[in-house]
């Protein structure tokens, strides 16, 4: 039976309507980069709560460890040393899922129900339904989802949907020592951001601003940046992110064309055509389908 403490807005590859009656509060996480010390408490708390343990890696000449996101590391701090107008800045950005209002991962996901967007704004992966095709990786404008080496499925930050569902804040938010990460309604977070931007402007950061990019319909993880005019300074945060043209193309033009072209193709073979999905995953999906059939 579905657990309806979080209402679903939409599901990947699903045409059936989601419930529409309830209108829960839209939530957001605000990351104030200007008060982030890059301590990695959020990284550790995330892994602790979600029971993830990346391998113990190596130092590669910078503070970044783990060096990238993975199925075992859903958020990482990215450090960049930047000199602007002779002044050194150590810009540290917590990287992870942005929980887009218009999620490229969900749109590109071919597996029904593997990616869910709740009405509160959280975009969640349900690995039970993931076929490991990697399309969410392609579809994500922020390069966030990662395929697990263990089970071939895609993983990313869930914004601690299990905690949010019972009224708690995400683990990273709670643990943040300096209060650089906040959580609340999107409206409140936007207002808080405005106050932070005002403070930064009073300290000489003329281009301080909120990062809530319109290209993906806005996000439910937002940044306060001292240099909002140059988000690339923060380890390559995209200036104007948008969903990959390939996803747009699929949803726009190709879908009907392809539907026509492939109408007669046997369903099973489609899965084998998916280059990144291993056969066994496909089999698993088929079994799921058979199970559904049997009901």
């Amino acid at each position, binding site marked *: 039976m579905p657990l309806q403490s979080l209402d679903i807005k939409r599901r990947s590859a699903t045409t*059936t309507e989601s419930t529409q009656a309830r209108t829960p509060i839209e939530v957001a996480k605000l990351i104030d980069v200007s008060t982030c010390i890059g301590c990695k408490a959020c990284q*550790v708390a995330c892994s*602790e709560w979600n029971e993830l343990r990346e391998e113990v890696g190596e130092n590669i000449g910078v503070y970044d460890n783990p060096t990238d996101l993975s199925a075992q590391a859903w958020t990482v701090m990215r450090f960049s040393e930047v000199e602007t107008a002779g002044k050194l800045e150590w810009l540290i950005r917590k990287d992870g899922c942005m929980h887009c209002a218009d999620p490229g991962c969900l749109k590109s996901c071919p597996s029904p129900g593997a990616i869910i967007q709740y009405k509160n704004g959280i975009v969640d992966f349900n690995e039970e339904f993931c076929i490991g095709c990697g399309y969410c990786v392609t579809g994500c404008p922020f390069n966030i989802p990662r395929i697990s080496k263990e089970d071939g499925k895609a993983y990313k930050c869930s914004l601690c949907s299990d905690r949010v569902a019972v009224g708690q804040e995400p683990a990273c938010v709670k643990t943040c020592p300096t209060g650089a990460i906040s959580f609340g309604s999107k409206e409140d977070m936007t207002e808080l951001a405005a106050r932070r931007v005002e403070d930064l402007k009073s300290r000489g950061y003329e281009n301080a601003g909120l990062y809530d990019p319109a290209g993906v319909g806005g996000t439910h993880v937002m940044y306060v940046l001292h240099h909002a005019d140059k988000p690339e300074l923060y380890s390559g945060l995209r200036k104007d992110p948008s969903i990959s043209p390939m996803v747009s193309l699929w949803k726009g033009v190709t879908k009907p064309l392809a*539907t026509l072209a492939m109408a007669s193709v046997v369903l099973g073979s489609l899965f084998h055509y998916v280059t990144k999905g291993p056969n066994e995953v496909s089999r698993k999906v088929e079994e799921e389908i058979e199970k559904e059939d049997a009901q």
Partner: protein
Amino acid sequence: MSQNKDAACPPVVTRRQFFKISAAGLGGTGVALLGFSPKDAHAEVRQYKLLHAKETRNTCTYCSVGCGVLMYSIGDGAFNAKSEIMHIEGDPDHPVSRGALCPKGAGLLDFVHSTSRLKYPEVREPGSSEWKRISWEEAISRVARHMKNDRDANVIEKNADGVPVNRWLSTGMLAASASSNETGILTQKFSRGMGLVAIDAQARVCHGPTVSALASSFGRGAMTNSWVDIRNADFILVMGGNAAEAHPVGFRWAIEAKKRGARLIVVDPRFNRTASVADQYVPIRAGSDIVFLGGVINWLIKNDKIQWDYVKAFTNATSIIKEGYSFDEGLFSGFNAETSKYDQSTWNYELDDKGHIKTDPSLAHPRCVWNLLKAHYARYTPEVVNDLTGSPVEGFLAVCKALGETSVPTKVGTILYALGWTQHTVGTQNIRTMAMIQLLLGNIGMPGGGVNALRGHSNIQGLSDLGLLATSLPGYLVLPNEKSHPTLQAYLTATTPKTLADGQLNYWGNTPKFFVSLMKWFWGDKATKENDWGYNWMPKWDKMYDVIHMTELMAQGKMNGLIVQGFNAAASFPDSNKVNAAFSKLKYMVIIDPLATETSTFWQNHGESNDVDPSKIQTEVFRLPSTCFAEEDGSIVNSSRWLQWHWKGAEPPGEAKSDQEILGELFVALRDLYRKEGGKVADPILNVSWAYADPKAPTPEELAKESNGKALADIPDPNDKTKFLARKGELLPGFALLQDDGSTACATWIFSGSWTQAGNQMARRDNTDVGLGNTPGWAWAWPANRRILYNRASCDVNGKPWDAKRKLIAWNGEKWAGIDVPDFKVDAAPATGMNPFIMNPEGVGRLFSCDKLVDGPFPEHYEPMESPLGTNPLHPKVVSSPAARVFKGDREKFGNHKDFPYVGTTYRLTEHFQFWTKSVRLNAIAQPQQFVEIGEVLAKEKGISQGDWVKVSSNRGFIKAKAVVTKRIMALTVNKQPLHQIGIPLHWGWIGVAKKGYLANRLTASVGDCNTQTPEYKAFLVNVEKISGV
């Protein structure tokens, strides 16, 4: 589909991509089209796991912020469920941490379940290369036998003058600064009862200088304000520390201050994580802080940024100093070059007939402190500062101006510092300089002000309070010295100061009450007036056996045993190679620890990390597994003096026992041996009071109550003879009731009030903010639940707050009252002229510290023992501190700037805690491998690139590590020469789940702060070279 700017470029899609997109998309959609919509698409993919898990409240075991944690264990507490801890997160009720935890705290779960946790008693037999599991019975009886044999052979009953000294020097003990106060106080009784004088704790290697500097300035050696109070500052200076990195959750209150408009400046050898959120960063050469701060004093005086009303009333600026005091060519008056010691007799006040200090309120007298101060720092001009520190003049002036702005009563500045100031041969004087600045600015006693020493370990404040240091006793009483204190009378006379000003409250005047009550705790009924309360049984010291001295004695083969309780000495002591050789000469070593450490495995070969031959090491090593924080009840003291009680959440792994049980069993076994066999100087062991319900396992509650103290007889009310302040057997409400006639027993007078007839005050959890972020109902703070020390000084001479917005207490016409407990005699009207610093017999803060410190009454810049300049431009004849104690062999190992041209400095990273968290997987993941930080200019010169392997060497040893090449360590110009610094994080070794590395202390010099022997880890000389892969 949303429109975006990328859409302006026509998407380039190949045929192959088109086909892939279509196929995959259709595949999924096809399923849905055909009716396969996921009926079981659960909302919240994962269900909440804590719904009925048992929740236990505890305090983080790492640093001294003392964050609250909630531990969740499997099962709901039912009898049949074994309480395995499965998740730990922050306690949102905690007034400091408010639910937050740093990466160490957030990873506590992996500490509790670390693969390095010890489970069974083990022994490593002499010459063996492996551990052997043994029973507790065997472990305790073998250790007791070793101790008895060594003590019988070596304890000194009387010295040459016939003074009973009960001194057992051939075995030493190290106490654990993450253990509870209850373990700590039992350790005090255990060790002094045996006659141990070579006993020390981590405070020796970290904040020793804080105690000496702050006590010699203000009267108490502790952080003056509290964590949350930092938010009340207008200006925050972070220097000599890296609060964001070492105390991330405490640092939140600096960020909160910033959000309220405060400015934050960081002065540090490297642009660190604190600097990343500061308004300004100013680089400095490690080891030149007194030049910088002395320059600030000079600037404040020259620019008249002095809070005059405060300085004249509440400091010793007006006091007249004895004739004969001088400072010339780098030396204060009274120096003896042969002994490297000062005769401090001229460094004191001129007294009148009544024994009171002569003053000159007009400040005209040439020998009044103000004029001496002005003259002393006139040499520290901005140009000199720039030349010796390498700090740019504009950066230096920015700090001066920001501090200077707080000289008005309505602006307050604070300082956050830690080991960046303490770990120098001039460590105490670094801190003294800042203490003087804060007095000049009127920032002591003020909310948002103070000198905030950020202590390192979770209970190092507690262990300092409990006197677990070579020459200390609980409550900052001193351990009797054989020369100065041969008798009780001599002790009390020497340690009870006389009042130096009219009508001044001189709290140390109560020393006899504190000391006699302590004796009654040590010796119980055996302490009588007739036997001077057992004074003769107390061990008496001749020299200070700090960790550097202990290592020297071990290296010379003069010590046989070492008991190491939760202290990774092999990693923490200077010159690790010497330390290892010293341990190898011991007959026996006893480790009590929850974790495997480098100390317990010093005899194991770990390749280049520890290249030893076990067969040649004859030390018998016992390793006894102990509980960790999560598995015990007890209290620990955070940096702002809060005693917070914590609760046990699970059973320890394997056969691990609490420290209290281990000490209890060991003590009982030893006492039984003395009862059965007799032995040398048996009386103290037979007479020490060990009246616990189970002598083999004293409980935290029993011990906490002993620290608080109780009435041994009815205590009459002196104002009303028909009444009693306490009845016989009752717990005391506070230290004011302590008596010097043997009618009270109290282990730790400053903790009196922590567990009263009203219950355990340390367990209080009322987090109500009564104003200015003060939460007096949360836990309990020593002394007397005061949250901001010297708070009388937050008011002017008339008892009116200097700043109405910062009203802590005020004189209301009858008494002092407000939102904090007055640090003052509550009914002493302002008109009495009583001054705020009640722990100083003169009642005022000391700009001139008189004879309290061994190396001078004013701080002076001396180069580190290993100076990168090879000279001291201020006085070339006296380069480094003349009062430093250096052992011959250690001096021979000092390197010079020609062979080792770069300044090395060690420090912590936020991802790790000392040498523990390399055994904690979550932290090992976050920062897996040893590295050093090298500036871009030097890296280029040396051909070192990002991520290369490098070898860093000093004249004592080397480490190999990865190179982090960074803009954040800038090349400086010092004494007109280029100067490079190399940053050396200290967290690695050969034990744990992080990548194997080297003890950073292989590089450091075995020399300490002149006053406290805290090692000089923050400035020493190294070289660096690129090496090929390791």
